[in-house]
C-alpha cells in the first residue's frame, strides 16, 4: 500500500510536471525547478538510515526553496521493481537521483548511462561514471570512539554487536569498535551475532538477548534501522549505541551515544555542482573531517577522563593525524593484519574481510 501511494504520488507528480511543461512552453521564461528524487529500501521512520538521508535534503530545500522539488520514494525493494521506479522518476523529469541502497547499483548505473543530463548519487557502492558518484561514510572513525567509551563502562569486559550482514562496511565498524575498546582495556572481547537480514526486528532482539545472556554489557546495534536493539538494551539495563541517527529517546538511561551521519554538506555540494554544470562522478568516502560522521548524545556516565581521551582522538581523526587502522594490528586468526607503523589505505579499508584479534565470533565466508 505504501508502494501504491507512492505510485499515486508519482502519477500526481507526473501530472504536475505535465502542467509545468505546458506552462513553461507558454511562458518561456518560467524556470523549471530541479527535480531531486531520493529512493530508499526501507520505510522511513523518525530514526535510521532512510531518515538520515531524507533529513539531509532539508537544508538543500531550505537553501534553494522553489528552485528544487524533492520527491522521496521509500520502501522500494532492491531489484527489478527499484529499476522500474527509478526509471519512472527520471522519465518524470527528475534530474538528480539519490539511490539510497547498495542493491540499486546496477539499475542506477544504467539510468546514468542512458541519461547523461541526470546526476546520480549511489549509497555505498564502488562503480563510478562521469555522472554517477558512490558515497559512503567512515563509520569506523565513530565506532572506534564508541569502543573507547564502551570499554570504560563495561564491567564484564565483554562487548557485543548485533550485525546485519558480513560485508566490509559492517566488518570495518566492528573492527574499529574492538580496537577502540582495546585502546582502553587490552583484554576486552567482542562477540558478534550476524542476523543475516537487513530488517527483522524480532530476530535482532533475540540476537541482543543472546549476547546479553553471554555477559556482554555494551551492545553495538550495527546497521539496524529500527530501535529494536536499543529499546531492548534499555529494558535489560545494558549500554547500547547505533549508527546514523540518534535513538536516545528509546533508551534515556543506557544510551551510550550515536555515530550519526549528516549527509547535508555532501548533498548540498553535489546539488550545487549539478546546477552549475560542474557535477563530476567521483567516489566519496566521508568521515569526521568532512563533518559527515559525528558522535552525538554521549552518555553522562562515561568517566570525564575517558571523555577527554575520546575528544582528543576525535580531534586527531578530524585533523588526519590518527587512523584507527594503524598497525600493529593482529587478525583474529593470529596472523598479521597491519604492520607496525603502517596505516591501511582506503582501498584496503573498503575491502576488509577479516576480524581483528579480540573479536571472538567467526566471520561468515
Amino acid at each position: 500500500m505504501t508502494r501504491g501511494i507512492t505510485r499515486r504520488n508519482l502519477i500526481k507528480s507526473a501530472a504536475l510536471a505535465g502542467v509545468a511543461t505546458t506552462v513553461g512552453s507558454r511562458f518561456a521564461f518560467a524556470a523549471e525547478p530541479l527535480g531531486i528524487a531520493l529512493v530508499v529500501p526501507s520505510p522511513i521512520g523518525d530514526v535510521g538510515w532512510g531518515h538520515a538521508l531524507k533529513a539531509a535534503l532539508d537544508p538543500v530545500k531550505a537553501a534553494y526553496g522553489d528552485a528544487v522539488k524533492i520527491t522521496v520514494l521509500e520502501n522500494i525493494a532492491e531489484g527489478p521493481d527499484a529499476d522500474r521506479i527509478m526509471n519512472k522518476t527520471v522519465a518524470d523529469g527528475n534530474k538528480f537521483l539519490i539511490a539510497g541502497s547498495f542493491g540499486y547499483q546496477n539499475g542506477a548505473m544504467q539510468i546514468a548511462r542512458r541519461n547523461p543530463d541526470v546526476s546520480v548519487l549511489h549509497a555505498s557502492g564502488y562503480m563510478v561514471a562521469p555522472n554517477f558518484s558512490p558515497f559512503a561514510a567512515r563509520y569506523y572513525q565513530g565506532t572506534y570512539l564508541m569502543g573507547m567509551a564502551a570499554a570504560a563502562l563495561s564491567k564484564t569486559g565483554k562487548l557485543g554487536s548485533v550485525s546485519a550482514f558480513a560485508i566490509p562496511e559492517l566488518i570495518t565498524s566492528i573492527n574499529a569498535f574492538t580496537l577502540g575498546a582495546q585502546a582502553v582495556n587490552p583484554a576486552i572481547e567482542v562477540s558478534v551475532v550476524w542476523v543475516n537480514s537487513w530488517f527483522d526486528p524480532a530476530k535482532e532482539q533475540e540476537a541482543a538477548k543472546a549476547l546479553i545472556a553471554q555477559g556482554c554489557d555494551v551492545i553495538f546495534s550495527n546497521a539496524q534501522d529500527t530501535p529494536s536493539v536499543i529499546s531492548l538494551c534499555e529494558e535489560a539495563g545494558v549500554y547500547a549505541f547505533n549508527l546514523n541517527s540518534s535513538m536516545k529517546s528509546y533508551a534515556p538511561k543506557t544510551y551510550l551515544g550515536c555515530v550519526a551521519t549528516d549527509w547535508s554538506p555532501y548533498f548540498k555540494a553535489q546539488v550545487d555542482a549539478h546546477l552549475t554544470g560542474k557535477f563530476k562522478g567521483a567516489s566519496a568516502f566521508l568521515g569526521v573531517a568532512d563533518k559527515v560522521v559525528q558522535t552525538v548524545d554521549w552518555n553522562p556516565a562515561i568517566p570525564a577522563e575517558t571523555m577527554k581521551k575520546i575528544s582528543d582522538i576525535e580531534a586527531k581523526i578530524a585533523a588526519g593525524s590518527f587512523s584507527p587502522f594503524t598497525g600493529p594490528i593482529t587478525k583474529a586468526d593470529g596472523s598479521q593484519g597491519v604492520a607496525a607503523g603502517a596505516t591501511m589505505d582506503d582501498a584496503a579499508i573498503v575491502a576488509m574481510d577479516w576480524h581483528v584479534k579480540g573479536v571472538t565470533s567467526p566471520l561468515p565466508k
Partner: protein
Amino acid sequence: MIALQFILSGMLAAATPFLLAALGELVSERTGVLNLGVEGVMALGAAIAFIIVYHGGGHVLAFAGAGLAGLLLSLLFAFATLGLQANQVAAGLAIGILGQGLSALFGKTYESLTVKGLPKLAIPGLSDLPVFGGLFVQDSVVWLSLAATLAIWATFAFTKTGLLLRAVGENPKAAHSIGYPVNAIRVAAVAFGGLMSGFAGAYAATVYTPLWADGMIAGRGWIALALVVFGTWLTARIFLGACLFGAVSLAGLAAQAGGVELPSQLLASLPYLVTIIVLGVISSNRRLLKLNGVASLGEPFKP
C-alpha cells in the same frame, strides 16, 4: 549452560507467534479451506494492536482489536472463496497482500515507535528450578497460548465439534448429505483462523518485539503455514514444530554469541532444516499421513 538457559527461557515466547497463527490455520485447513493470507493477516493484526497499545488502550483491547481485524479480513477471504467460489490459493495470496498493504497504511505514522511489552509471570516453585527455571517464567499470552493449544487438541480429539470440523474437510458431500451446513462451518473455521492470526500479529508487535516497523512480521506467517503441513494437521506436532523452530533459531544466535565456529548462514538456516527433518521423520509413515491429511483441502464445495 548459559546458552541452554537462554534457549529454554526464550523458546516458548519465540514459538508463540508461529503457534497462534498455525493453530488458527489448522482449524481452517481441517475444514478444507487453505488460507494463504496468514502473513498479511498477522501484519494487519500487528499494526492494529500496536496502534491501540501506543494510544494507551492496553493489551487486552489491543488483542481484541487485532483479533477482530484478522477476523474481518478472513471473512472477506471466506466471502470470495466460499461465497463466490473463487480459487482459494489466489484469493489467499490476494488477502495476504491486502493485509500487508493495510498494515503499512495504518502503521505509516507509527514507523519505528516503541511501546511497553507485558510483564512475565512466574510459576511459583517451578521457576526456581536450576537450568529449567526460565521455562516457567513467561508472559500471560504464552500461558494462554499453551491453554489454547490444549483446548484445540482436546476439541479435535474428544468433541463432536472436532469431529464435525474434520468431517467437513474430509468429505463435505457426506457432511452435507446428513444435514450439516458445510459452508457455514467453513466460514466459522476461517473466521477463527483470522482471529488467531490477528492474535499472533498482536503478540509479535506488542509483546515479543514491542515496536512497529513495516514488514516486521518478516515471513513468520509463511512459517506458520509450513508448520501446519509439516505437522501433518496434528495439534501436538504443530506445537512441537513451533517450539523446535523457536528453540533452534535461538540456539543459532546463542552459538554465534558464544563464539561457536560454525558459519552464521548455516546457523540461520538450521531452524528450517531441523524442523523439516524432525517433522518429516515423525510423519514419514505414508499410511498415517494419508489418514491425517485433509482430503478436500483447497476444493470448493457447492451444495
